């Protein structure tokens, strides 16, 4: 679900292919989640502010339920992600779908890694005449 939350609608669409028959148990709905922080990073909880979230629950014709929750307001993405979530539960671990998810996850990890390397390029190397002392 974490991977799907970060994936784009078109990525999910491509991976899912033709949407399977399903019932909408909970139609795509946009609401908010109040995001909490902690004072000082680890102390008392406080409300930082809300974030938009869209969720959806589907049931495939075989009875399998799929859920999706992700930041943003994309209802169609939420529905497709819920369908994919349901499909994934029925598929073997080495199926094409799971491999597709793994590929998406790898792509997201690579993007994070690149961003981190770019940030690392701005890391300060201090030097003095007595470096390392």
């Amino acid at each position, binding site marked *: 679900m974490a991977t799907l939350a970060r994936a784009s609608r078109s990525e999910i669409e491509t991976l899912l292919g033709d949407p399977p028959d399903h019932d909408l148990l909970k139609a795509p709905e946009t609401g*908010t989640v109040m995001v909490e922080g902690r004072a000082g990073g680890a102390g008392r909880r406080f409300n930082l502010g809300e974030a938009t979230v869209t969720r959806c629950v589907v049931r495939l014709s075989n009875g399998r339920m799929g859920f999706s929750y992700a930041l943003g307001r994309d209802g169609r993405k939420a529905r497709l992600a819920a369908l994919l979530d349901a499909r994934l539960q029925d598929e073997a671990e080495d199926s094409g779908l799971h491999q597709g998810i793994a590929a998406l996850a790898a792509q997201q990890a690579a993007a994070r890694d690149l961003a981190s390397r770019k940030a690392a390029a701005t890391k300060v190397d201090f030097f003095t005449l007595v470096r390392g002392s």
Partner: protein
Amino acid sequence: MYVAVKGGEAAILATHDLVAEARRGDLAVPEITVAQIREQQALACARVMNEGSLYDQDLAALALKQSQGDVIEAAFLMRAYRTTLPRFGSSEPLDTAQMAIRRRVSATYKDLPGGQVLGPTYDYTHRLFDFALMETEPQRAPSPPAGEGWGEGSRDASDMSSKTGANVSDLRDPSSAPSGHLLPQGEKDRAPLDTTMPRVPDILGAEGLMEAEEPPEGDPRPFDLTRDPVSFPADRDVRLQSMARGDEGFLLGLGYSVQRGFGGTHPFVGEVRVGEVAVEFVPEELGFAVDLGDVTLTECQMVNQFQGSKDVPPQFTRGYGLVFGHSERKAMSMSLVDRALKARDFGEATNYPAQQDEFVLYHADNVEAAGFVEHLKLPHYVDFQGELELIRRIRREREERLAQEQGAKEPDTMPEAAE
């Protein structure tokens, strides 16, 4: 005498048309898109998300477009929209120690674990115009950068087949520094940053030198000022929520006042960090935490001077700021005022505005403030008629009184009270 009047509908409809025209500006200039604002005016979007108290970059960009860049009007749009949405619940508290760091600097330790990461910042620019930005670059517009370099995160990155130095020329310093600077090449060879970086106050805390920051007994749910009325003295959770959605300019001014002596702290930036943090939420029907995706956050930890008592040895004290998006000035201001507002907790005098929670919390909200200030524009015809009638009567009575006194006295006295 006041007579009720109706009217103005036609005028109001016409002003809607006119403001739409004013917003659009010169039709010869292409219309700006929401995506352009989201991608290219991200700092303005961050401010709108903070003051609108709603994290949604697309909506923030739309709000800015709709309000012609008026940040407070845009925040108002966000607040209004928020009220139409159901709330699914509260997230798990964010763990900023797990932040995917883009920027992290400390003014207290040079060689802190994880290092000083400057990230994207205007701090080291010369504040000289980059007139190259006046030129649009049509050759870059149509093709999303793919493959190497900046574009790797792009959705349709086929792969890294175009591994050439071709777009090195595109790697101009994104800051407004004078053009011609290239990013250091070979960023791919750089190791990524550490996945978790210790928060600087925690380093001091390990030595016992820093005021401990622990959840109170039972880790209670925070107060929510959007649901319940605030009372004073306000607890820390209320103060932090209020400041997180408060006006950046107001908090900046208060923070500045504290530094200048109206509150008596001149702290060190223990750390400022900017980056992405995952938001986790436990839906009722699932019963386990679901990762909703990442939000960009800025966190500031101020290290302030000592406080101690006969039971506790002297320790540094903290000020904390946490905000949506890349908003360092806001996070820093918030942490200054957070520390100032702790004055009462530490038994310090509360002589200055920044130390008084009622003053700060009641005036930090710019949507409320703008509403009350700007409501003065609305018709006050009846009130004003009343005032007008009153002042005329007072003046009439005064003149009559003066005339009587005048008549009683000898005629050569100057009427000195008359102005």
